[in-house]
């Protein structure tokens, strides 16, 4: 239902923007020459001169005009007089200091490609809608397809409603650093998923909204056109555009309640899903900034689109790799469970029959051998997939694990558990596997006492493994993906798979704490 409301709102906004954009495109009369005239009593004078017209120093506001397109002012017919006031002329005559008439050819200023911008906007609307809607930017974003398409395209659609500006500093401030980050695409993904960067993105978008209003009202405000209401409309639509910019960010913040609290511990899967969201939120700002800054040039928006495409592609590659990896792990677990079940259901049962027969015929040696084979089969079965885990849950399974690690390593390992109810099976499996890895690390690198704490209910589970001494090297957790610390990597992966949070800490008093936290939703 919320999705329908959201999509309805997005479509409505897109519709309004389209109408506004097309109306502005069809009705707007751009100041071709950059010179506006007005009558001061019977005298025709220059009202405004666009700095871009290259006439600074020659004419200025108040300069008396004697001829327009070869017509003497005093001989003007009403229709020429009307055209003059609307800027429809190509040369004017002014009096030079000697009192002679000097004719000025007025160069045409570049005509804003506003129609082109509108078309690009519509193409973007359709393109992003299809791209996200078909799941090419990640399945998680599909419900947001319409919102994202509208948010990305509206600034372009709205371009005809405002005029060009000249603020290259803004490009430097917004677009170029982003483009530069393209060089470090991986680092960019990591950086932009950090809550601090999301905060900065939100701040940027807000600032850009304010900047739009300031630019349009202050530079191209009442000074440019003689109709004040045009500027009002202009200001309103730009505020609207800026607000739309903020929609994806609002969604982002709304759907990440712990984004700022969780910091590094936030499950990467969740944050990665939001990379395209952050990009989409920034896109309209960057695109419209580019238009404003470059006098409607399209190079900056196109550059930004390139950044977006590259980053989204690499992000969806990360997604693909993660899905592949998770599939491998899941397949391995299924295979292990199947092997364990086969061992139990066939081999172990047949050993039972064999042991009984050997007992019956009184072959004590062979019976003892058969029993030791059965013991070994039981062990292999448990190593593949501990039956306790499935039949009784993670709590009893951890009890077994702790006892076994204690025996085999000769170290003191303690378990504290509070688990009246069992969380879902996949969570229990992840908890058990993380505990296995963590205990293997703890007995190899840490010092006793080693403590395992497990606290679980049907909708949440938390596990911690604490040791005292040695500990992980300071950057081991960060280096997990690079240098073969497969144990840490495996634990992180298990956590990601169930959407849990995992962190590796080194308290000031030494040792290592590995914590896993999972909750429903």
């Amino acid at each position: 239902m919320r999705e329908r409301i959201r999509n309805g709102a997005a479509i409505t906004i897109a519709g309004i923007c389209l109408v506004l954009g097309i109306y502005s495109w069809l009705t707007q009369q751009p100041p071709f020459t950059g010179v506006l005239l007005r009558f001061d009593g019977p005298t025709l004078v220059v009202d405004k001169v666009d700095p871009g017209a290259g006439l600074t120093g020659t004419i200025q506001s108040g300069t008396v005009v004697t001829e327009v397109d070869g017509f003497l002012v005093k001989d003007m017919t009403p229709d020429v007089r009307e055209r003059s006031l609307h800027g429809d002329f190509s040369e004017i005559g002014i009096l030079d200091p000697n009192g002679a008439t000097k004719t000025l050819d007025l160069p045409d200023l570049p005509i804003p490609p506003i129609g082109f911008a509108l078309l690009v906007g519509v193409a973007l609307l359709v393109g992003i809608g299809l791209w996200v809607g078909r799941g090419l930017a990640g399945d998680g974003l599909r419900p947001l397809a319409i919102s994202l398409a509208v948010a990305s395209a509206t600034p372009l659609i709205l371009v005809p409603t405002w005029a060009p500006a000249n603020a290259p500093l803004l490009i430097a401030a917004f677009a170029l650093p982003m483009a530069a980050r393209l060089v470090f695409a991986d680092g960019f993904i990591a950086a932009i998923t950090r809550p601090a960067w999301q905060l900065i993105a939100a701040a940027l978008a807000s600032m850009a909204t304010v900047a739009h209003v300031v630019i349009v009202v202050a530079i191209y405000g009442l000074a440019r056109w003689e109709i004040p209401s045009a500027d009002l409309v202009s200001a309103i639509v730009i505020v609207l555009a800026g607000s739309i910019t903020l929609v994806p960010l609002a969604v982002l913040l709304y759907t990440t309640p712990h984004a700022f609290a969780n910091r590094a511990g936030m499950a990467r899967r969740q944050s990665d899903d939001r990379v395209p969201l952050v990009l989409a939120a920034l896109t309209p700002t960057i695109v419209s900034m580019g238009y404003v800054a470059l006098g409607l040039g399209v190079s900056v928006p196109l550059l930004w689109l390139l950044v977006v495409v590259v980053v989204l592609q690499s992000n969806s590659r990360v997604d693909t790799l993660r899905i592949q990896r998770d599939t491998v792990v899941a397949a391995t677990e299924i295979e292990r469970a199947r092997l364990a079940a086969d061992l139990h259901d066939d081999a172990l049962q047949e050993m039972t029959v064999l042991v009984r027969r050997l007992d019956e015929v009184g072959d004590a040696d062979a019976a003892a051998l058969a029993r030791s084979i059965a013991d070994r089969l039981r062990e292999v079965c448990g190593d593949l997939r501990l039956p306790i885990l499935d039949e009784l849950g993670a709590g009893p399974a951890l009890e077994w694990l702790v006892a076994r690690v204690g025996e085999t390593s000769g170290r003191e390992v303690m378990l504290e558990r509070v688990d009246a109810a069992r969380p879902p099976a996949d969570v229990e499996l992840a908890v058990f596997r993380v505990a296995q890895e963590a205990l293997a690390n703890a007995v190899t690198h840490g010092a006793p006492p080693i403590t395992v704490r497990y606290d679980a209910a049907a909708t949440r589970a938390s596990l911690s493994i604490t040791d005292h001494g040695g500990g992980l090297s300071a950057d081991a957790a960060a280096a997990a993906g690079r240098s073969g610390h497969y144990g840490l990597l495996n634990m992180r992966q298990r956590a990601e798979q169930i959407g849990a949070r995992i962190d590796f800490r080194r308290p000031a008093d030494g040792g290592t704490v590995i914590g896993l936290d999972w909750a429903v939703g």
Partner: protein
Amino acid sequence: MTAEAPIPARPIRVAVVDDHAVVRDGTAALLEREADIEIVGVAGTLEAATGLLAQHPDVLVVDIRLGEQNGFAFVREVKEAGGPAVVILSAFDYPQYVDAALRLGASGYVLKTDPFGNLVNAIRQVAAGGVAYSVLPTATDHRRLSLREIEVVTLIVEGRSNDEIGARLGISAKTVESHLTRIYERVHVASRTELATRAVREGWIEAV
């Protein structure tokens, strides 16, 4: 499992629940050889096992892993419904399984590769109202118990009721009850049977 239980006058009615047909039928056939044991039915699934209850067996022999099904859940159902005594016959000797068996009220736990005589003795013992565990549960820290509590445990092991224990120790039955509650909490047990079994098995008290 060495002590021979007394042979009762009428045969012990036994039902066997195991999903592995060869083991199930082998177990039933070997049990049938005992003069004092009568097999009233066998089952390979929980549904069939529930049907067996209509035969009013004295003892159910149950495997824990029944294909995709969980034998523990069946034991809980049977005991909650006040059903017959249960001996668990498992391929696994995990102490955690034994803990669960005790908690759910099973009277015995025998490993499949144990000498077959263990199962026969266990059936006789639980049919007579006793307990028979051939695998140890996880160790419990009985050092948390006070001297007074150990006295209560000793009398529980002797099979005394709360009234008898109260009379012996000069306290009310209600006080005995509250002692017991605290003991259950301290050593994590759920029943008198479990408490008595652990106390004897783990040597909390002098053998009685």
